[in-house]
């Protein structure tokens, strides 16, 4: 007698966008506790400063900070350069206004241009962008010192894994609530937190050149990059990801960016000459 009932199992696990779906209520609780523990309990600060660009990452970070601490303890800094768009400034002001946090505008144009003017050579867009990122870092740390506050970072996992940031610039703050969330997960969280849709829906941009977007620079959308990153970090080889249906060129784009930027995710390399080398033999955690 024939077997009429045939059941197909799911088959091999394939990294997919559904793997990156979050329980955003849990993530919010998690990150608020993270901020309170790491900022206040471990380090003794009750105020924080955030660079508020008007993009989704800094808007989410500012929202979390406003909920973790009293809104009046959160200081958001708009740090425009001459290439920054008015729309970005407006969006930053909108978020600050909705959250009731302090909002300070601190233009970096004069400082950046003065620095670049010391060198007669023409500054490329890339170089100028690095100087802007590091100037913003200086402003944040200086203002934090003045206020007795701690700077919060806003970089997401997609940027960090693909090296799409300035070393010792936007990655410098000691506390980062978003660093283990892919960009698409930050979008989920932003919607859950009620970040204005005009900010969540707009194309992500470093705002260094008018019309520039992250995805143009990276050569791949975050939606597709995040799934590939998730697969690579979960232990799948590029070949396995391609065999599971991912575009070979996109897998290669992501792999190349990850492999070329391992150094950016590390502290500076020190020559080891003893058996007490810091970070090699002498090992203590950050909160020890």
């Amino acid at each position, binding site marked *: 007698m024939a077997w009429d009932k045939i059941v197909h199992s799911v088959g091999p696990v394939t990294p997919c966008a559904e*793997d990156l*779906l*979050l*329980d955003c*209520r*849990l*993530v919010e*609780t*998690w990150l608020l*506790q*993270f901020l309170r*523990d*790491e900022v206040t*309990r*471990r380090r003794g600060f009750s105020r924080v400063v955030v660079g508020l660009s008007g993009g989704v990452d800094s808007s989410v970070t500012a929202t979390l900070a406003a909920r973790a601490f009293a809104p009046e303890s959160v200081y958001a800094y708009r740090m425009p350069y001459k290439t920054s768009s008015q729309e970005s400034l407006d969006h930053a002001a909108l978020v600050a206004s909705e959250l009731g946090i302090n909002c300070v505008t601190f233009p970096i144009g004069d400082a950046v241009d003065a620095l670049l003017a010391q060198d007669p050579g023409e500054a490329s867009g890339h170089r100028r962008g690095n100087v802007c990122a590091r100037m913003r870092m200086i402003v944040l740390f200086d203002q934090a010192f003045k206020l007795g506050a701690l700077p919060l970072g806003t970089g997401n996992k997609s940027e960090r894994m693909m090296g799409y940031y300035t070393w010792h610039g936007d990655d410098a703050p000691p506390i980062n609530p978003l*660093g*283990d969330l892919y960009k698409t997960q930050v979008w989920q969280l932003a919607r859950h937190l009620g970040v204005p849709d005009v900010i969540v829906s707009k194309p992500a941009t470093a705002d260094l050149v008018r019309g520039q977007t992250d995805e143009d620079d990276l050569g791949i959308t975050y939606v597709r990059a995040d799934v590939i990153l998730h697969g690579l970090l979960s232990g799948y080889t590029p070949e396995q990801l391609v065999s599971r249906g991912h575009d070979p060129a996109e897998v290669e784009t992501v792999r190349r960016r990850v492999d070329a930027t391992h150094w950016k995710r590390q502290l500076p390399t020190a020559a080891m000459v003893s058996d007490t080398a810091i970070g090699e033999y*002498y*090992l*203590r*955690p*950050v*909160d*020890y």
Partner: protein
Amino acid sequence: MRWTLAQFQMQPVKAHVDANIARVVDGLCTAAVRDVALACFPEACLSGYFLQGGVEEVALQADEVVQRLQSGLVAQCPDAMIDVCLGFYERDGGAIYNSALYARLGRDAPGRPVGLAHLHRKIFPPSYGVFDEDRFVTRGRSVECFDTAFGRAAILVCEDAWHSICGTIAALQGAEVILIPSASPGRDLREERPGNVRAWDNVCMMLAGEHGCWVACTDLLGFEGGKAFCGISTVHNPFGQRVSSGPMFEEAMVLTEIDTHDTTVARRRTPLIGGLQETISVLLAQLSSAAGGD
């Protein structure tokens, strides 16, 4: 026998042993006035978990921990009588262990000598992913049951419980209660309960259900360098059911009424441990062979 268990989801002050011992003593006093028989504290609760080389600076001898708890308890609550199970980094000779002790504290009573009753050294210190224990601590070598006023007990520290053979050894020695001080870094936030908590639930459910024993898992609390210990301590009864679950991200004393007699009922209903006792000698030869022995 009916008795009350208290699990303390504790957020230690990193590497401040004195402050944490004082916090434990406060907990013991809080529990003692509520007729708690046993107070359980998490893994590494006297220092925090992620210490790297710092373990050498916070490790204590087991006897010293017991003596300090006893003197603190007697000073604050002279009439207290309470047992404690607590995880800490232990120094013994030249070695450091990730250990948990069991001690009887407070007033002396006939048949209840005050002092250290048992010491378990973590057999499986994990060294993968976020963990790097093997580099800094020495492995324990044995699972041993011991007697308490409310039945036979065993301690497994955190990952020990994930290796089913540890629970099996404890059960074969007659454990009715398995105490698990743990420090489980939270991860996988795709569902309402974190993925590590769901995984622990499965481990404890299987451990309790297979061996017909009570399983109490007490988790550490607080962020350490971005890694979260979220609490949610649990108790599973000998039928494999979760009967208690502590809050997330809150220090708390979680009280659970336990009836050790339930182990008898559970083992009569599903006598898996009896079947294992009958067959273990045959399986041991296979186990030895599978492990590369003769």
